């Protein structure tokens, strides 16, 4: 029975995504009931990782579903940016300044992080030139 379920589940990314969403729903419930200070997605991720590492859940059962959810993650961001409908003032000068801050700061964060990681990676590998 479990084996048969496994074979079906292994093939369908939709079913897998649905099962993952169900597991997340359970975690969200726990976060809500216990009023935990962590976002439900993070608790669910920890649970899923623990299940995978502990061997309680075979990776092929959820691999495709997880890939599908990650592939389409940007779709889930669209409604957040629609909040601009409520903040028309941001389409003017203030918005331009905010955008400038974001561009400048993001450039710094990315270049800084990349250089630090690259340097410490090489240092750890003893590849000092």
């Amino acid at each position, binding site marked *: 029975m479990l084996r048969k379920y496994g074979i079906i589940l292994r093939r369908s990314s939709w079913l897998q995504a649905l099962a*993952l*969403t169900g*597991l997340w729903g359970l975690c*969200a419930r726990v976060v809500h009931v216990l009023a935990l*200070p*962590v*976002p*439900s*997605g*993070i608790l*669910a*991720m*920890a*649970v*899923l990782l623990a299940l995978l590492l502990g061997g309680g859940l075979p*990776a092929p059962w959820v691999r495709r579903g*997880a890939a599908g*959810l*990650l592939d*389409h*993650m*940007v*779709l*889930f*961001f*669209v*409604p*957040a*940016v*629609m*909040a*601009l*409908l*409520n*903040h028309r003032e*941001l389409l003017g000068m*203030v918005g331009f*300044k*905010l*955008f*400038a*801050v*974001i*561009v*400048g*700061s*993001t450039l710094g*964060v*990315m*270049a*800084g*992080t*990349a*250089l*630090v*990681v*690259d340097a*410490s*990676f090489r240092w*750890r590998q003893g590849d000092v030139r």
Partner: protein
Amino acid sequence: MSGNLQPLFWAAVTLGSYGLALALHHRHPRWWTSPLLMTWALCFALALTLHTTYREYLRGTGWLVAMLGPATMAFAMPIYAQRQLIRRHWPVLVIGVAAGSTIAFASSWLLAWALGLPFGLRVSLLPRSVTTPFALAFAGRVGGIPELTATCVVVTGLVGASMGELLLKWMPLRSAFARGAMFGMGAHAVGTAKARQLGEVEGSVAGLTMILAGLVSVLAAPVIALCLR
């Protein structure tokens, strides 16, 4: 438009625009055809034309926001797949996230202050480098306008993912770790999607960096809240 059909309409518009945007991006893979930007532009233009309020739009698409939970959870998979690599190099990741988070908070605050943005906006900008669920948790703790934070987070992701491509051309990054950490730290989930296109190591390092950065910001939130008081 009738009240009952409207939520359905906006869900269909959003999904339809996304489908179109994916097809377009597949044919012309440029930064300005990024599915997020295209989908948003189509929906925003239509919402402006039809005089739809944000609340009305959200009635049909709130479930998409909720799907960020399962999507965040799905990062367990690439982390699991790359567990050997991560076990071997975790100190590098920790150093990278510590450096990146410091730069993110400090530069957002200082630049916003230099440009004369008011306190409320500055606070809303602070957690913009971390992915939405964490950024909202941070905003709830420290203050700021949650919707504004969410928008800044997404704009950061778009800007970072497109600038990342330029940075890769300018900077000689030899390790896949550095490429992944750059995208995960600077552009959270949008950057992680980009990093996944570069390679599996880049993708999972980006995902892990993003999660670590989120955890750092939530842990730092009480301290930062105290500093701002």
